[in-house]
């Protein structure tokens, strides 16, 4: 810096870090969690008068208190992770797929339709194959519509995928209205007595199959994004479309293919939610996970391995929040406030991992 252009330095200056050693970055994150817990403790004491340690232990019991709670936590984790994995290739490609909610919903709707219309007329194995195929197709179609418009006419995919969610919700309402002529708008458990089309329980655990399927998808997605040619193409298109074009990648094809994959996995999530978990379809079957998944994916830096951790954090906080609300007879909102604070610190600390704050150096030290 020459003497001429030198101007007074601000008290605080933010600069990009070149990359923090892994253990330092994890220390920053641990510190953030600790600070969040301290702040939450203050809030707990101020507004509820409870002992924060008791509240935190209740929070932990929400996921680990009993074998049942542990399995529920794993199931919720698997579902959130599945949808997060589904949106990841699209986001890595910088395609803003806000439509996972709808893609999951139509996937679930397809499975529910097969369960409703076929009933117990087909053997379970064949039935499950048909249901899975229907869900995959539904998810793919729902994702490919905005992808096609994007690739062809460069429409805004954020708005388009978002709108498709509302269409999916209305579609579910419409079919429930047809299937339930009494007008109650409640499907109830489909095939409750025949259990036709229900995914089997493994070793007496009704969620185990869901969890295993998602575990396999996680590994596959990790390999796909990191080591496959297609995974590499996704990264290149995400970094720079022009570079991708220059090195001969067919950008349109990559967009369509990647969104197809994204939709297919959302379809699988819908299939698992209906056939393996709820055995019904409602407009809230996706339950907002299509949006939470975006946070999981970004927090996990599009790395399937880290996303296991980030979805665990979210599910752990959700389950803990419910437990606190029941245990201490608090409004769910109090638990949500605590969850919000913890998430805020976790997300916020990424700033300190990526940037550093420089204090103005004293004149003597300067040149």
């Amino acid at each position, binding site marked *: 810096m020459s003497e001429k252009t030198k101007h007074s330095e601000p008290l605080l200056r933010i600069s990009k870090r070149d990359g923090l050693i892994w253990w330092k970055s994890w*220390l920053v994150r641990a510190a953030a969690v600790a*600070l969040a817990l301290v702040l939450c403790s203050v809030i707990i004491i101020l507004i509820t008068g409870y002992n924060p340690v008791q509240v935190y232990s209740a929070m932990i019991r929400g996921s680990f208190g009993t074998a049942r709670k542990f399995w529920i936590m794993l199931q919720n984790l698997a579902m959130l992770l599945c949808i997060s994995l589904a949106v990841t290739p699209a986001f890595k490609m910088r395609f803003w797929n806000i439509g996972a909610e709808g893609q999951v919903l139509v996937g679930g709707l397809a499975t529910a339709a097969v369960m409703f219309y076929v009933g117990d007329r087909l053997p379970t194995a064949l039935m499950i194959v048909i249901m899975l195929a229907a869900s995959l197709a539904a998810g793919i179609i729902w994702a490919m519509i905005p992808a096609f418009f994007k690739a062809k006419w460069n429409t805004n995919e954020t708005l388009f995928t978002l709108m498709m969610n509302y269409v999916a919700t209305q579609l579910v309402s419409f079919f429930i209205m047809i299937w339930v002529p009494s007008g109650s*708008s409640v499907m109830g458990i489909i095939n409750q007595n025949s259990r036709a089309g229900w995914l089997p329980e493994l070793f007496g655990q009704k969620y185990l199959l869901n969890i295993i399927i998602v575990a396999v998808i996680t590994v596959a997605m990790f390999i796909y994004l990191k080591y496959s040619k297609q995974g590499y193409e996704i990264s290149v298109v995400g970094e720079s479309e022009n570079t991708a074009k220059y090195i001969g990648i067919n950008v349109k094809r990559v967009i369509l293919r990647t969104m197809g994959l994204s939709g297919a996995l959302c379809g699988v999530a819908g299939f698992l939610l209906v056939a393996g978990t709820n055995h019904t379809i*409602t407009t809230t*079957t996706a339950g907002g996970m299509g949006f939470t998944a975006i946070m999981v994916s970004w927090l996990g830096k599009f790395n399937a391995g880290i996303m296991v951790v980030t979805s665990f954090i979210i599910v752990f906080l959700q389950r803990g929040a419910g437990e606190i609300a029941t245990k201490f007879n608090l*409004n769910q*909102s109090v638990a949500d406030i605590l969850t919000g604070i913890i998430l805020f610190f976790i997300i916020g600390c990424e700033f300190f991992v990526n940037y550093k704050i420089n204090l103005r150096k004293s004149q003597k030290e300067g040149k």
Partner: protein
Amino acid sequence: MKKFLSIALILVMSLGLLAGCAGEPATPSGGGSDADFKVGFIFLHDENSTYDKNFMDAASAAAKACGLTDDQVLFKTGIDESDACYNAAAELVDEGCDLVFADSFGHESYMLQAAKEFTDVQFCHATGTMAHTEKVANFHNAFASIYEGRYLAGIAAGMKLNEMIEKGQITADGAKIGYVGAFDYAEVVSGMTSFYLGARSVCESATMSVTYTNSWFDIALEKEAALSLINDGCVLISQHADSEGAPKACEEKGVPNVAYNISTISMAPNTALISSKINWQPYMEMIINATKDGTEIPFDYCPGIKDGAVELTELNSAVAAAGTQEAIDAAKAELEAGTLHVFDTSKFTVNGETITSYMADVDTDDAFTPDTEVVSDGYFHESEKRSAPYFDIKYIDGITAK
């Protein structure tokens, strides 16, 4: 910085350690002494929904009246109508609950699933239809004869219409009521028809126009529906949906409103007339006491106005016509005495004809087949064959869908 980080790390670790120690195993379920007794409640939303608030208030009051401590009463709010309901019920059983109650129609099949699995725990479900046919010993349905309350609230509406006609604000033919319904479903149809019959019992020229929101809770949609009815010339509005959307629209437009579940006088002082509501406290006290004492809970229970389960909230004297309270009290006495029937077939027609027979879908089946004759002795026997309403005649003459 280093120092700070190490302090932070120590904090995290010590918190984790403390939390680990404080964890205690869940006590297994078991009846026996009163101190061990626990009851769990499952609610679809929280107290921000008038529907759930009505249940939550009743649950708290009943627990208090039965002498239960806070530790003996567990609330789970925001429980979806999905596998989450089964899990919530199972977790409550794990916590040692001897009785589990759920408040939403869509909870039913999951409650039934839990009842079949945990046979020594009682499961009670409001608004459902399956208990009387499934006959699972520890699974019970309940509702209340809310149509009686709607009828009485309808009288307040009819009196108001008469007053408006007398004052020359509207013509007799212009006595048109607007009704915002949630779904085109028996519970809603039964409610609107009894309300209309109540209004017409005092104002003969009254007609009613109905519109549906296809949602149980949607403030914006309900408000919009009420406004569109008002624009169509409706001079009084009532609703069967769980938000304050319609009463607020009425207050803005200065149109009288009859509400449901809660009194709306505080939010609409110039237009709120009266509300009908179900008081769940007697039922909740009954199931708590029956579970404690080991006595039987009815499969399908439907108390009415004479049991104190159906109530009217305070009449807003600033809005109501003169003599309204007296008219309501007289009709109430007749209902209690059994000399007046809401669905008296001589009081209404369908396509110009009096009905003498009607097959209702009382027993739940996949095809929704009408299976039970419900008209006899000159009236439609609502909520006698099953607690959940099944009056689904669309529509009696005088009511039209918008």
